[in-house]
């Protein structure tokens, strides 16, 4: 008979936000009736010749999946696939659905299907991010993949799309179609470019559209880029549309107004907008202090603005600031 370890072992886990109690399921009690009858007419120490291994106590109520994992083959198999159950249990409504599934019956087909696109190494990560995909009917998933193929996505592209964005297959073809259409219309992309964008950053397609709209507004109206420039930037660095609009504007303001970098240069090297502001700021201030903040390629001692974002500090100091890292560190302590 298997017993649970003391729950105090998971005391630390109990403190987590998973306040909602997960209810137990499974375990039929077939022997209970016969046992209680026996109990009435004989004493408790009497030996029983029947096999009692089927009788186990109820699963106690718990805040985490660790209490169930030793008794559930399904959960064990998920762990063997490298699925992080501690991440999943942060959302109790997901856990409720996952606990009702059986590995052989409900999950196996899905995992075999996904294996073609995701690969076994990435499967754990994929299922950790989106465990609810196991609850979708497999025909729907097939339809969604077929839709992508019908739109001219090659097998490699479909693979990249699905593995990079675990939530893609959750959206119905109608929604995906509408979203692809939105990007195509708004950025006036051709079919090839839409496919390129969707493959380069699949998360962008399923992202919150309100957020995307606001970021497009920030780039176009507040920063003052043209429509075609917006298109180029998004195709080059799609993550720009997924940034927080406030910090995006803050970065731009520093680069454009303090460092006096024209729009054209930013357009050529949009990665500078992806870097956190304090990094650009401290490197720029350091170069400024040394008198090396010269970002015009036509003049001598040119420092490309890429240098402010890329490479570790040692490399940056050696190549562009022409001094040792210690000097840079000393400078940082005066800010």
């Amino acid at each position: 008979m298997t017993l649970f370890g003391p729950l105090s072992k998971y005391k630390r886990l109990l403190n987590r936000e998973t306040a909602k109690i997960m209810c137990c399921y499974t375990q039929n009690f077939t022997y209970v009736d016969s046992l209680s009858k026996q109990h009435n007419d004989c004493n408790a120490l009497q030996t029983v010749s029947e096999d009692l291994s089927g009788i186990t106590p109820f699963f106690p109520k718990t805040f985490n999946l660790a209490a169930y994992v030793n008794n559930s083959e399904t959960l064990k198999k998920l762990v063997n696939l490298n699925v992080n159950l501690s991440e999943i249990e942060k959302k109790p409504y997901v856990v409720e659905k996952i606990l009702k599934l059986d590995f052989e019956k409900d999950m196996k087909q899905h995992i075999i299907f996904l294996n073609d696109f995701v690969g076994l190494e990435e499967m754990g990560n994929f299922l950790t991010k989106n465990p609810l995909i196991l609850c979708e009917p497999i025909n729907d998933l097939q339809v969604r993949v077929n839709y992508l193929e019908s739109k001219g996505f090659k097998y490699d592209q479909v693979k990249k799309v699905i593995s990079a964005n675990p939530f893609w297959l959750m959206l119905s073809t109608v929604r995906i179609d509408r979203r692809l259409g939105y990007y195509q219309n708004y950025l006036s992309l051709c079919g090839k470019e839409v496919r390129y964008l969707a493959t380069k950053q699949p998360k962008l397609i399923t992202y919150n559209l309100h957020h995307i709209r606001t970021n497009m507004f920030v780039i176009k109206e507040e920063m003052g880029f043209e429509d075609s420039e917006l298109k180029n930037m998004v195709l080059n660095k799609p993550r720009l549309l997924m940034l927080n609009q406030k910090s995006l504007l803050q970065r731009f303001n520093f680069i454009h107004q303090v460092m006096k970098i024209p729009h054209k240069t930013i357009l050529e090297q949009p990665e500078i907008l992806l870097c956190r502001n304090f990094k650009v700021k401290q490197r720029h201030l350091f170069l400024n202090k040394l008198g090396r903040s010269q970002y015009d390629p036509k003049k001598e001692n040119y420092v490309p603005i890429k240098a402010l974002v890329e490479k570790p500090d040692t490399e940056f100091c050696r190549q562009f600031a022409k001094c040792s890292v210690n000097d840079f560190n000393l400078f940082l302590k005066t800010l």
Partner: protein
Amino acid sequence: MVKFRSAALAFKSLNGVICVYKPSCVSVKQVQHTIRTNLCRDLNALPDRPIEQRVEIIGPTNAPMEVKLVPNYADNPLVCGPRYIKDDFRCRVASHLGLFSSGVLLLGLNEGTTLTYQIHAGRPTRAYKVHGQLGKATNTYFWNGKTVERTTYNHVTREKIDGVVAHIQAAHQRTMFELSGLHMESQTTYELASKGLIRPAESKLPVVYGIKCVSFEPPNFTLEIQSVNEYDKYLWTLVHDLGIQLKSSAHCTGVQCIRQGKFELELALLRKHWTLEHLTNNMKICHKLLEDNLQLLKPESAVMMQ
């Protein structure tokens, strides 16, 4: 640099005070959060203890049962979560730095939180570099406020600033004796005062021990202030008052803490160095410093030590 063999050893060594450089526009809470999450990240990457075994007795109960030793799935980091989480670290500051201030910040980790409490109770002097600008006064006394007044500052010279600053310092000498909690005309006060500067008895009112203008390039100037019980807004008002006394106006453009007790700027760890190895190294140095200067934790008298 110390290389740790196991995460448990590393975690045990993380008891003490660390000295970090707080950047401006990052709150103390955020600093604590970053340090704790970084420590968890590094500890979880270190070699872990083996997964616990679990005894399972299986088979029908009316026949000989089988006893097996199997790995306990419930102990797998994938199931019970990472070994070290943020809540495992207690973290506390010795003295608060405001959102816009930067500089030396003392943090106690785990058992070190008692030390930070003692350091705080010992009231160490803190040295600040306060940057100000003449010609503009704002409603918050800081650069982020609304401008309420603009004035000329051509008449302000280095000598005038030095004069006003010396006056402020002298005025604070008197409050220093008043806050000592002793009767002003007693023999004890005389004996204390003859030994030099003294610490305040309570932690409510700011006392400035030294204030000096270290650079003056109109309209910008920098003051160096040594004080106890101060807070960032108080330093801003000092700059504002200085502007008024100079018959101009001024606002503060930055506050940087350059020393806390014996903890100097060189010791402070920059944001990019907030990793397990650097932090444990720093903790050792801080520990040695505290052992050499026990008066930081338990000052014997109210007289300031050098």
